[in-house]
């Protein structure tokens, strides 16, 4: 109901605004809007990604601010997931993937030779499209990250971090009596919140979410979205999503990708209500995508 109402309002505003100024034409693939922010957490400059000979991401420049949720939207195959996976060097596992340009976390280029991916992934955590808890107990799932990084020394500390992480992920009340049951026994939405708990247990600065709700039903999705909103207080979050409604609900900034190009970046309201680029407008108005 609410969504339909929102959409109606959106349509009204768009009709009103879109007549005002001419849009950037479809042929122009330069990024428009405001990709750069003040005091960013992560800065990406001229990032190019190649899969073998395929040029998957073209010259993307984008900042991720502190305590903000940035949504990355765009049609399938536009490179938004690829770009997201560059942010914690998840693409390292693909032998033929090559990244150029610079991606910095707090001013330090994460693609420098002397950067170790293990602590990097502790700082930039990731939540995947399909809930992927380890085939271990709920407790073990959350405790694993802190354990391997040596963040906890004894059982008491581990218990504490497991409890706070599960609480932050909004799962504590549902699982506190069955922490020893396998994580895979939970429902899909609970599994995804368990994965989020697992990620925040390590205490990252940035959380990357790759379509975290695409395998979930609307109620589980709503819970995750609420959770993302709460987490914004402590973390920077970059979320890739197929759903424009979701992007407009959870994010403050939105980046629109099209065939490997970053087309437009701006505040979420502006991108959805008053896009500057013709391609963005085509996508957000549902003309294609």
């Amino acid at each position: 109901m609410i969504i339909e109402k929102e959409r109606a309002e959106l349509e009204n505003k768009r009709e009103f605004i879109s007549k005002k100024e001419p849009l950037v034409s479809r042929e122009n693939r330069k990024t428009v809007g405001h990709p750069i922010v003040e005091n960013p957490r992560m800065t990406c400059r001229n990032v190019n990604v190649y899969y073998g000979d395929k040029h998957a991401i073209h010259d993307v420049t984008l900042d991720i601010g502190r305590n903000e949720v940035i949504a990355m939207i765009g049609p399938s195959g536009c490179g938004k997931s690829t770009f997201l996976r560059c942010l914690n060097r998840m693409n390292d596992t693909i032998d033929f993937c090559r990244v150029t340009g610079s991606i910095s976390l707090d001013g330090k280029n994460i693609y420098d030779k002397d950067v170790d991916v293990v602590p990097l992934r502790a700082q930039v955590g990731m939540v995947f499209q399909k809930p992927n808890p380890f085939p271990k107990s709920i407790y073990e799932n959350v405790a694993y990250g802190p354990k391997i990084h040596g963040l906890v020394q004894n059982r008491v500390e581990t218990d504490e971090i497991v409890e706070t992480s599960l609480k932050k992920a909004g799962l504590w009340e549902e699982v506190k009596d069955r922490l020893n049951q396998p994580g895979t026994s939970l429902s899909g939405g609970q599994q995804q919140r368990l994965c989020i708990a697992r990620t925040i247990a390590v205490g990252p600065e940035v959380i990357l979410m790759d379509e975290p709700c695409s395998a979930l039903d609307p109620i589980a999705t709503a819970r995750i979205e609420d959770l993302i909103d709460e987490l914004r207080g402590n973390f920077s979050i970059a979320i890739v999503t197929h759903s424009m409604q979701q992007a407009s609900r959870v994010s403050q900034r939105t980046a629109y990708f099209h065939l490997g190009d970053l087309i437009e970046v701006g505040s979420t309201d502006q991108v959805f209500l008053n896009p500057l680029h013709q391609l963005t407008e085509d996508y957000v108005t549902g003309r294609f995508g």
Partner: protein
Amino acid sequence: MIETNIDIVKKGLGKRYRAEKRFRIYGVCAIAASLIFLAFLFISIGTNGYTAFQQTFIRLSIYFDPEILGDTTHRESLASANFPAIVKQSLLKMFPEVQSRGEKKQLTSLISSGASYYIRDMFVEDPNLIGNTVQVWIPADDDVDMLIKGHTERGVEEAERRLNNKQLGWIEKLERDGNIEKRFNTIFFTAGDSREPELAGIWGAASGSFFTMIVTLLLSFPIGVAAAIYLEEFAKKNRWTDIIEVNINNLAAVPSIVFGLLGLAVFLNFFGMPRSAPLVGGLVMTLMTLPVIIIASRAALKSVPPSIREAALGVGASQMQMVFHHVLPLALPGMLTGAIIGMARALGETAPLLMIGMVAFIVDVPSGFTDPATALPVQIFLWADSPERGFLEKTSAAIMVLLTFLIAMNALAVILRKKFEKRW
């Protein structure tokens, strides 16, 4: 009436279902054929071999005559003591009518030529027997054994029998007196090989196989799993790893006798390791089993879903932590299955062992990795090659023992897989 789509569909249905039914019948036939052959195999081996688990024994009253044995206080003099004479004496006492030299010889040939060793062992265990008479069950000669078990006919011409009429008469007398009977064949399970079927056992070959398998398991499983993990998880995918992969696949298809020749050239001739030793057998089997284990382990590693790897890397696990904490536990059941199937194949392998001298006639039961030994399948091969009628049933019995081991190993593979399998 116009023919609608549904009519066309219905018309074709009968043909479709007939095709399906035909296919099912083919499947049932195929399974039935293989089951029949399997049953045939088991029945023929079983009917040939079950008699080997029993052995004919003859009861003698042995008098430990101090005059014949002479000085028995020292171990050295015991070795030369005339135990065969004691056995002979007790036999002659049962048949006083036997006088001529030739007849005496025919009479003593009724009991196993190993009888005197049994008496000696008894005496060594209890030297107080001197001067006493004891009732002892002594294994009969294999010709008598075959007769009692009915494998040789009593009715045929004397010239075509291995036992003459006089001997048959003696045997009948023994039967009448209850001095001959079939008992459970412990010799078969405790003795090493022998030229005499009634004294031959599989324990020597089984121990040889056991030591060989221990060496194979200890070497091939860790090396194979380590190689598989490195190739699958750590090595960069490039031309070199492709070449290695192709070669491993080729190695798995190399005939086993070639591995035997390799073992002969490398382990015996170059490194100068002992001939006929389970250690060398195990090394050769390791070479043979390695590719099987590597291929099975790689397949098991590949089947671990990438989402688990991503999850581990995503929270900051190092490559090795990812492999050992998450991938390996999930891949282990498959690896174990591969290893056990590889081991089962190695257990049944004969050809490579021929090349490194494990085909020798070895009477002693091996007690270590460097003692001369033979293996179960080689023992089967040796017995199958022997002319004595008594070895026929031993061959089948040895096959039964080998098959029991193989089935036990495969069952273990299934149990281990069930036990360690995790769902995700």
